């Protein structure tokens, strides 16, 4: 490690002592993702201390949850991580089903995997495009959104909405797939395969992109676990945790029989199930580049999962099954379930007192903890690195402020 | 029209302009309380001198077509420009150091060596 320390220009000596400036980046700053305000204490170009201010998008969803039944609260979960609304719905539905000890039909399980993984691709595309914007290149953002539009069209056919779907509810799905949808979905996947290589060429292996992200915002595995970071941020630091394989039994049951590799660097190399670009020489495990690369691998991984779920969905015979009643009576007790969302592990904690309206609802958001580590990463970096680091954490303000 | 009255500029016209620049520079150095103001005064003085060098070195301005200084005028002006750059660099380094330690560039406050 000492090799990294001495040749790295990061140990920048301050030359002339200009007075320390307190500078605001956001909340309406174009680069921070949504209404996040970063207060930077800078000395010239060096950021000596950074403090994020959140709460600008706080809509007290949890207080409202104490007056609605479980199914009525689904639209509120959509608006938490609005880029991956399906994963949010699934998380909440599974938590309630875990309390009720209710098993959905086999067909519904496979359909849920299909829809959730498709939404993960859409969310990672936005993450990739916005990260390109943070580093100054505009074109990848538009390529990403061109592909995302195709996915949104598919979702529009399924549930009529393009951003906040409320499609997966407690006990199943609100509607079955329209005819011919699976063929269109497969057609999308086939034409999407080569485009991923384009994104790699455009960003991942681009010399300037590597210069801007390698060795920046290095997050050690211990600090990641200690701060409760989850998802691509954790896997970017080399910690091999993915709830689709290591989560609660009710959640991993959905993924039983699916062959997939967790996108993490294990003993020196990433999974080799597809050909990926090589890791650049000066990228350390846990820096912005690795977090970005893990997201790109997960897109490919989700495409495999979707193909497998399409086959299984078309093979199973049974009916899809109806979701539970709108005012389903919930047994007294409490339960907590975490699911693997694109931004990280999203947890829902449900406390009920026997009536159909829960007593307390709590949503533990992944970006909340991921953002908590950013002051640690931004200490001593340059001003231009702050959007690079915050962008690599891929935070969504709806999820943090709830 | 003033232009017609003055006719073509000759060496002495350049010398007058040089003199004005020189005296402005001297006053600036004497009067300004800001260290950078003094620096600017020095630049003006050097420029006044440069103008004289070039005026005397220019064949086109000389009365009989042969300038008194010949090429030396221009070369001297070049060296003055080069050395002024070096001088400004050092002067600025000193000023910024002074600013670092005393948080002011006010020349009157630089009285640490007072008895």
């Amino acid at each position, binding site marked *: 490690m000492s090799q990294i320390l001495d040749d790295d*220009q990061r140990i920048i000596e301050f030359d002339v002592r200009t007075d320390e400036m307190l500078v605001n*980046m956001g909340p309406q700053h174009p680069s921070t993702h949504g209404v996040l305000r970063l207060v930077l204490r800078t000395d010239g*170009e060096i950021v000596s201390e950074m403090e994020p201010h959140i709460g600008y998008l706080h809509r007290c969803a949890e207080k409202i949850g104490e007056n609605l039944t479980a199914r009525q609260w689904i639209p509120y979960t959509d608006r938490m991580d609005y880029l991956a609304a399906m994963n949010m719905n699934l998380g909440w539905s599974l938590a309630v089903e875990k309390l009720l000890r209710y098993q959905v039909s086999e067909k519904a399980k496979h359909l849920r995997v299909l829809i959730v993984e498709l939404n993960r691709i859409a969310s990672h595309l936005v993450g990739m495009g916005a990260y*390109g914007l943070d580093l100054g*290149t505009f074109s990848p953002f538009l390529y990403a959104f061109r592909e995302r539009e195709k996915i949104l069209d598919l979702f529009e056919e399924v549930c009529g909405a393009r951003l906040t779907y409320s499609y997966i509810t407690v006990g199943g799905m609100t509607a079955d797939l329209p005819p011919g949808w699976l063929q269109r979905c497969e057609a999308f996947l086939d034409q999407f395969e080569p485009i991923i290589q384009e994104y790699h060429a455009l960003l991942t292996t681009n010399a300037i992109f590597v*210069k801007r992200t390698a060795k920046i915002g290095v997050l050690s595995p211990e600090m990641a676990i200690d701060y409760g970071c989850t998802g691509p941020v954790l896997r970017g630091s080399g910690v091999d945790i993915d709830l689709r394989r290591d989560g609660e039994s009710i959640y991993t049951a959905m993924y039983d029989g699916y062959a997939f590799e967790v996108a993490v660097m294990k003993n020196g190399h990433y999974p080799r199930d597809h050909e990926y670009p090589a890791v650049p020489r000066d990228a350390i495990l846990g820096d912005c580049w690795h977090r970005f690369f893990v997201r790109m691998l997960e897109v490919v991984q989700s495409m495999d999962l979707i193909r497998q779920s399409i086959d299984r969905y078309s093979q199973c015979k049974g009916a899809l099954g109806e979701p539970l009643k709108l005012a389903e009576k919930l047994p007294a007790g409490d339960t907590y379930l975490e699911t693997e969302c694109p931004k990280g592990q999203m947890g829902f904690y449900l406390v009920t007192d026997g009536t159909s309206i829960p007593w307390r609802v709590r949503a533990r958001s992944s970006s909340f903890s991921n953002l908590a580590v950013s002051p640690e990463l931004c200490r001593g970096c340059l*001003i231009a690195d702050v*959007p690079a680091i915050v962008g690599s954490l891929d935070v969504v303000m709806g999820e943090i402020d709830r | 029209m003033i232009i017609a009255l003055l006719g073509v500029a000759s060496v002495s016209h350049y010398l007058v302009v040089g003199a004005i620049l020189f005296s402005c520079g001297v006053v600036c150095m004497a009067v300004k309380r800001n260290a950078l103001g003094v620096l600017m005064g020095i630049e003006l003085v050097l420029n006044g001198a440069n103008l004289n060098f070039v005026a005397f070195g220019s064949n086109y301005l000389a009365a009989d077509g042969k300038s008194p200084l010949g090429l030396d005028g221009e070369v001297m002006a070049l060296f003055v420009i080069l050395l002024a750059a070096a001088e400004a660099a050092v002067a600025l380094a000193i000023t910024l150091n002074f600013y670092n330690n005393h948080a002011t560039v006010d020349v009157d406050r630089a009285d640490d060596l007072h008895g």
Partner: protein
Amino acid sequence: MAEFLIETIGLPIWLAWTCIAGLSAVLILNVIAGGALVFIWAERKIAARIQDRLGPTRTGGRFGWLQSLADGIKLLAKEDLMPDGADALLFRLAPYVSFCASFCAFIALPFAFDTVGQRLNVGVFFVVAVLGLEVFGVILAGYASASKWSLFGAMREAAQVVSYEVPLGMCVVVPVMLAGSMDLVTIGEKQAGWATNWFIFHDPFTFIIFWVYCTCAIASVNRAPFDLAEAESELVAGFHTEYSGLRWSFFFMAEYGSMFLVSALAAILFLGGWNGPIPVSELLGLSDGVSATDPFALRIVGCMNLFLKATAGVLLMMWIRWTLPRLRIDQVMTTCLKYCTPIAAAMFLGVMLWQLFLPGGLVAGSFRAAAGVREGWLEQSYRKESADEESLSVKTLSRHVFEVSR
């Protein structure tokens, strides 16, 4: 032209020359301003093409070519705001300083043989010097907008442009050395004939230094990977955050003007300026090779050649802008000090040695191996150069102006 005015219309000498001066000034200003308008439209179209979308299509016909006019009207109509903390005089002056600096360099830039505003013997040096003045407009804008972000932008830009002037200067000196004179017209003329005479193909060193020149040019004009001054993602819009309306458009025109200037300079220094790749006029017998005695029509062809090459350079810059992400300030400085300057110095040395041992270009040199180091080449080359001077006997604008009317 001037003789025509004097003999036929009988204008007094000074009036004829004043009209010529006025005409060339208007020509330069409008050609470049017109070019800037076209480039604004071209930038939108190229950005759209690169990003798989259409770009402006509705303003004026199918290709939206009236888009820059629409932009102009919008900018004229917009209110020119000024932040209250701003320093009024400097705030108003900054865009014009930047605009004048970038347009004033076109005085010494030749468009074809001897069709140039003022043929300066130190043409190249003058252009590079004036290019460096544009940074003042930015510094004043940054300071006068009284906001932290624009101050950051201005400081970054000033540091970048000043430090990139060093390698830019070195790259510019190589063609000067090959042509033996700093006069852009002589440099352009020395590259007449086949494309192999162009300085870029003169020897491997000049080829490399051409690309170093491109990097430094892009950096000193603040484009693409080096556009730190208005890095949207970090500094909102850098030094011209507080500007709107007409003042902002002056900064915009200055940027496009200097973009055209830098690529025109590249065309003249390395890509043979107004000489096409194949000497068509010579092959067709229209001219006897010495471009001084060319008929007037060939100069138009020369202008067209130069415009094509300069536009190609500008389009390249646009292409790079919409593909590459932005560099950080310390990476920009490292590329300047640790990569551009040493490479430029090494190539400069290489070209000098090449020039000593194989005086001609790659093509000419390899045929005629040098007979050892020529002694006294300094004095000999000067006498030859002044000899050319007499044979050309070009009546320059300056001789008339300074003639004392007895």
